[in-house]
């Protein structure tokens, strides 16, 4: 977890001196200093810190009152050596004038530089009682209805509610988990709810998919079949499987003769009379949903340096949206701007110094190549592609870097992503928001942290994560 804290905090803290000194180089000591001082702060318990902690703008650079206070305390001295002292020296100051000191805000999880960022602890319920709910404490009856609606798609009947109410408290808690286990195998959860969660990650377009109505001389213009992506997503998030395989699987998933999801090994040819729609990449070059034909087609398309593909992977699977300045971890010397797109301009380099070293790893994967049309090349592995498409590729020999780690291939990059705390936190965050209906509030952050940090011991099972989630006060307290 400390690794995540350090990385995320690097985003916030390294930008301040980076801009001041005109140096976009990462400052790895800064987050360590920050979290050594504020180890128990909610911001260090799994949120994605952004530049707004200190900045109102990073290009041109501008600070909020807290960032300005840090800047002033540094007094032009070396950032790495003086950040901890600067942070500590303004702890008792109320930089944003909202009545709470900076330290109080850091401990609460609000922004000490934004007077509108506030949170009040929940009051204790008062009143004569409530015949319907145990207000203010975990109420299994309340949780029962939520479990059934969220995961089975339907409320319990009157008879089921009556039977549940007859159980003792411990038996009710056990019954909740039995119901959840049943619901997690239901068509509603697998084919409705999980599919809906996948839409923003897969981003289907009917006109290009298997259901397209477009055809030419009898050939259906399926450019790629995103149903493969949906099935892989459904498969790895059910049956106590390892959810990391959404990024590392070297198999694909189809429906067997019984309609069940089942892995399929090897290269998968396109169906007859369709341009595409199979999975042409050899298994050893596959990286789960990152290398499906659909993902490469939709995101890489014709681009030489697949920046959109990398940025989408970072956002969809790690929860780090570079467009929101989340997860910025500049790599020294980047961006190289190999394709002369101007991404080394200061305003662009802020993000591209993180993005481009990831995008290089996707360069050996074709998006959509019409060079020899009507013969199309869609979503394939072509090791010669970077040198052919990117001038100076071989001379530059750029490093592939994600989350501060150098890797040799996209397959290795996907493994680093899947094993990262960011992946676990993002998966848990997605489920938390679905089940609870909002982002984790300050009083819920401890429960949230407990859920996502338990994923490794739970074998990265989404099902086990959900069993932990329904036991939280955030889920079951009316």
């Amino acid at each position, binding site marked *: 977890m400390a690794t995540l804290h350090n990385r995320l905090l690097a985003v916030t803290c390294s930008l301040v001196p980076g801009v001041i000194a005109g140096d976009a180089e990462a400052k790895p000591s800064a987050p360590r200093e920050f979290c050594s001082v504020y180890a128990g702060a909610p911001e260090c318990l799994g949120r994605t810190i952004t530049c707004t902690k200190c900045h109102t703008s990073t290009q041109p650079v501008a600070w909020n009152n807290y960032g300005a206070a840090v800047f002033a305390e540094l007094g032009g001295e070396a950032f790495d050596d003086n950040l901890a002292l600067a942070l500590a020296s303004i702890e008792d100051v109320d930089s944003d004038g909202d009545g709470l000191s900076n330290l109080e805000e850091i401990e609460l999880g609000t922004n000490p530089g934004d007077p509108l960022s506030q949170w009040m602890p929940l009051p204790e*319920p008062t009143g004569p009682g*409530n015949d319907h709910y145990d207000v203010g404490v975990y109420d299994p009856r309340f949780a029962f209805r*939520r479990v059934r609606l969220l995961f089975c798609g339907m*409320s319990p009947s*009157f008879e089921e509610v009556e039977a549940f109410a007859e159980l003792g408290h411990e038996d009710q808690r056990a019954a909740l988990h039995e119901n959840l286990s049943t619901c997690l195998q239901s068509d509603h959860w697998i084919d409705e709810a999980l599919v809906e969660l996948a839409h*923003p990650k897969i981003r289907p377009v009917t006109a290009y998919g298997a259901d397209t109505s477009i055809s030419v001389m009898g050939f259906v213009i399926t450019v790629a079949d995103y149903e493969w992506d949906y099935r892989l997503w459904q498969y790895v998030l059910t049956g106590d499987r390892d959810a990391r395989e959404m990024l590392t699987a070297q198999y694909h998933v189809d429906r067997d003769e019984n309609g069940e999801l089942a892995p399929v090994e090897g290269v998968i040819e396109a169906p007859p009379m369709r341009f595409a729609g199979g999975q042409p990449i050899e298994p050893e070059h596959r990286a789960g949903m990152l290398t499906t034909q659909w993902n490469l087609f939709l995101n890489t398309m014709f681009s030489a340096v697949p920046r959109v593909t990398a940025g989408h992977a970072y956002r969809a699977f790690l929860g780090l949206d570079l467009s929101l300045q989340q997860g910025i971890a500049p790599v020294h010397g980047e961006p190289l701007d190999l394709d002369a797109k101007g991404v080394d301009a200061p305003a662009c380099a802020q993000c591209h110094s993180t993005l481009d070293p990831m995008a290089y790893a996707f360069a050996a994967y074709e998006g959509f190549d019409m060079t020899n049309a009507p013969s199309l090349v869609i979503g394939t592995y072509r090791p010669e592609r970077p040198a052919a498409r990117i001038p100076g590729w071989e001379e530059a020999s750029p490093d592939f870097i994600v989350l501060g780690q150098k890797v040799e291939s996209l397959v290795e990059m996907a493994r680093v992503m899947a094993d990262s705390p960011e992946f676990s936190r993002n998966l848990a965050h997605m489920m938390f928001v679905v089940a609870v209906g909002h982002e984790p509030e300050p009083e819920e952050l401890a429960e949230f942290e407990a859920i996502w940090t338990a994923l490794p011991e739970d074998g990265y099972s989404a099902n086990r994560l959900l069993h932990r989630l329904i036991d939280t006060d955030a889920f079951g307290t009316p």
Partner: protein
Amino acid sequence: MTRLDIVLAGVLSAAACGGGPETVAENELTKSTRARLLWKRNVALEKDIVRALELAPDEVCNELGTASCTRDVHHVALGGAAPFSLGLHKALPTPMLSTAVVVDRVLLSACSNRVAKDALGPAVVFTALDLQDERGPAAGGKAFDATVTALYRRFLARDPTEQELSVLGDLAREPMTAQEFAILACYAVGSTTEFLFY
């Protein structure tokens, strides 16, 4: 305009002006300090109505008799995503202005369809009513209590309180047929916040 339309317009107008019937008196219960409810979105709403009224999914509500209100036409207003038709990959976080109107539309359709089927017989939900009667049940009578109780059990999985029976008793005092009462009582219980949020 049918007689039901007129009755419905009157009841809905009264409800709008009056701020809606209170299912329980606010000052009699301990209030939640969290007040963080989940919105029962299109798929769950449809399934709960299907279960409550024992209808097939395509009997709940269809526009022009063919397109599902909950799946195809009003699914965005009801909280669903529309990735294939609109490129809306993520459902809206909160209800829209039109959501309340659409919920009314769906519930009135489903309730009307259930009453029509029960009127043809054999009755499934409104078993205590004579649906051919030109007058609705008397408030507090056996048929009234049985009907309201059945609706509460089917929609909310609990029995109505005395106060809730009293509120629906006001409805029964309006001049209307048994079928009109059945539709409006069904709509009244199905459109409670307790049914629509969880």
